[in-house]
């Protein structure tokens, strides 16, 4: 994809996203499509975070949900009025990003020296440990209750608790755009080049003066801080952290699907991936459920008749089809084209 075409892609995506609520309100009132875009934006931020780790640097991280949980709970503790901190939305969000980055460093420092599958196993374990820790630190995290209610933010004189979904829609869109812009700045710079070089050939990158541990650690902790940000937004938007089980392995896998289906290393691709995967879940499947229920076809008895139960089957199928027929994803990145990584030993 050339540069101009890519910029066109960004412009079209942004214009569509900004205009969507108005078009919908004008042409199809009551459809609820734009409303359902809020989780999509949050998953797009998660996807962009994981994209730094998996897409650019080539580290398989299966513990994204853990960083999301850390973000959500930090945000909860910092804002909820059952704790003394009670920070505002922006300062709590900023603090959450820092906490996420620190968590990334703490996990990354010992784990980053592992390669491939071994790192994936460590991050998988980390995901489980964080859930268990949150469940068992009852005095702090309220265990399985989750932290609630979280105050809804009041920004720029707009009350986010009011009936309209528009404030959240535009806030999330704004944050997603800023994140995408900053990630793009990094991608097209010496830092992004170093990440890709480490992924392509670690020894050669080393001999060119790149410290691979430092490059990977930076990627890891930046990815973690973005996931943490997404967690904070998620908690704030729901008004609750939910219980720790909400941040389980399935979330990590969905985010991985978002990145792989959209296109590893491609910002636009990841955002499209979020629209396709999460949108499918929250718009198509739930719409289908409603339709079937209204027609009287859907009954609680037959598990196969509930569209939501087909979710993971369809996700898996999508993943298989994409890796088989379009391994570089829906929108392949400009510089990055994924090929099977070859392991060359020695020089």
């Amino acid at each position, binding site marked *: 994809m050339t540069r101009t075409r890519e910029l066109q892609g960004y412009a079209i995506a942004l214009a569509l996203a900004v205009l969507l609520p108005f078009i919908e309100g004008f042409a199809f009132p009551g459809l609820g499509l734009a409303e359902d875009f809020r989780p999509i934006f949050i998953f797009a931020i998660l996807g962009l975070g994981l994209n730094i780790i998996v897409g650019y640097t080539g580290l398989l991280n299966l513990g994204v949900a853990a960083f999301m949980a850390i973000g959500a709970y930090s945000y909860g503790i910092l804002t909820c009025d059952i704790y003394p901190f009670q920070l505002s939305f922006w300062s709590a969000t900023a603090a959450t990003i820092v906490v996420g980055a620190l968590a990334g460093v703490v996990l990354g420092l*010992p784990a980053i020296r592992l390669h491939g599958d071994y790192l994936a196993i460590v991050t998988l374990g980390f995901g489980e440990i964080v859930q268990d820790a949150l469940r068992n630190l009852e005095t702090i995290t309220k265990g399985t209750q989750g932290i609630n209610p979280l105050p809804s933010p009041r920004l720029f004189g707009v009350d986010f608790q009011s009936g309209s979904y528009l404030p959240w829609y535009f806030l999330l869109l704004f944050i997603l755009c800023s994140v995408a812009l900053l990630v793009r*700045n990094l991608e097209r710079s010496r830092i992004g080049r170093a990440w890709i070089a480490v992924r392509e050939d670690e020894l*050669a990158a080393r*001999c060119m003066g790149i410290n691979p541990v430092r490059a990977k650690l930076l990627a890891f902790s930046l990815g973690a801080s973005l996931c943490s940000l997404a967690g904070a937004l998620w908690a704030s938007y729901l008004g609750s952290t939910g219980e720790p089980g909400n941040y389980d392995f399935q979330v990590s896998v969905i985010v991985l699907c978002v990145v792989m289906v959209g296109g590893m290393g491609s910002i636009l691709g990841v955002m499209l991936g979020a629209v396709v995967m999460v949108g499918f879940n929250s718009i198509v499947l739930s719409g289908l459920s409603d339709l079937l229920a209204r027609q009287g076809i859907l009954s609680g008895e037959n598990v196969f008749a509930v569209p939501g139960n087909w979710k993971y089957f369809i996700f898996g199928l999508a993943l298989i089809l994409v890796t088989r027929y379009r391994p570089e994803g829906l929108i392949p990145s400009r510089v990055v084209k994924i090929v099977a990584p070859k392991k060359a030993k020695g020089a």
Partner: protein
Amino acid sequence: MSDLLQLENVTVRFGGLTAVDDVTLTVPKGSVHSVIGPNGAGKTTLFNTVTGVYVPSEGHVRFEGRDLGIPFRLRTIALCAFVALATALFAVLAVNVQTIWEQAIIANYIYQQPFPWSKAMGDAFVSLSTLSFYDGGLPLVFGFVVGGAGTYAVWNASRLTPDKVAERGVSRTFQNIRLFQNMSVLHNVLVGMSGKHRTRFLDVLLRLPRYYREERMATADATELLDFVGLKSHSTEKASALCYGDQRRLEIARALASQPRLLLLDEPAAGMNPTESESLVELIARIRDRGVTVMLIEHHMDVVMNISDRVTVLDYGKKIAEGTPLEVRQNPKVIAAYLGVEEE
């Protein structure tokens, strides 16, 4: 001419195999020094030792009179101590976080009343200081030992690594081409400049003017290098799209990007036809004229004999001869190593 690189009794062993056996050699500044020998003689291992991929089992590699690799300094102790303390603190907090939270936060916070911060801090310290040995002392010691020892182990393993050697001014190419295949030709060279970047993370993240200035200068330097090796017109192509000889040239350009004082070329003429290797000889001569000392592993004898100031011959990891190309060519030991000797 002063000596740029000195190998003193360098021995590299892999288990029972001695790949490089007691090799001593010096490379003067501004020269072209070739290392030749039959396959498996330890030439590439020697290069890997110089660039920090392997650490010599015995002996020293000195570059510009100093050992490659970081010496043990006060900073190392400070680093280990800092990480050890941080880990110890983390361990203690991790074990007792609920107790401290209860005594400092929950005990002091009355719903929607202002929170007495200083009292809470005091209570947190009291809570920390009254911990039993098993809750406080044990994690403290454990964290301190693990953190300190871990940091020292990591530091020790990274004393002599290729990236540090590259920053000192030693650069290399690889026997089997190791370009970043999916990056453009220009970006490959830009990656070679990694050690030279001075902008900070925030400059890059927010695209401050400093970032643009550095990026512009780096691109100009990289384009100049591509011009130097004759690849300027290919700069936007993907590296894997280049033909074989051009990939070799790109590797050289990438290696030169770090402005090395010593360039190690591992079989640059492998797989080249006579015309290509002739132009390679000419390129190496131009590199030498830029003031870069070149060390060369090569099997093409026409390349070696044309360009080298001195030649070292390895066989089974041992240095069997050294001298000018002419001397080496007439050395009976060298002829024996290459062609074998008749049994008497």
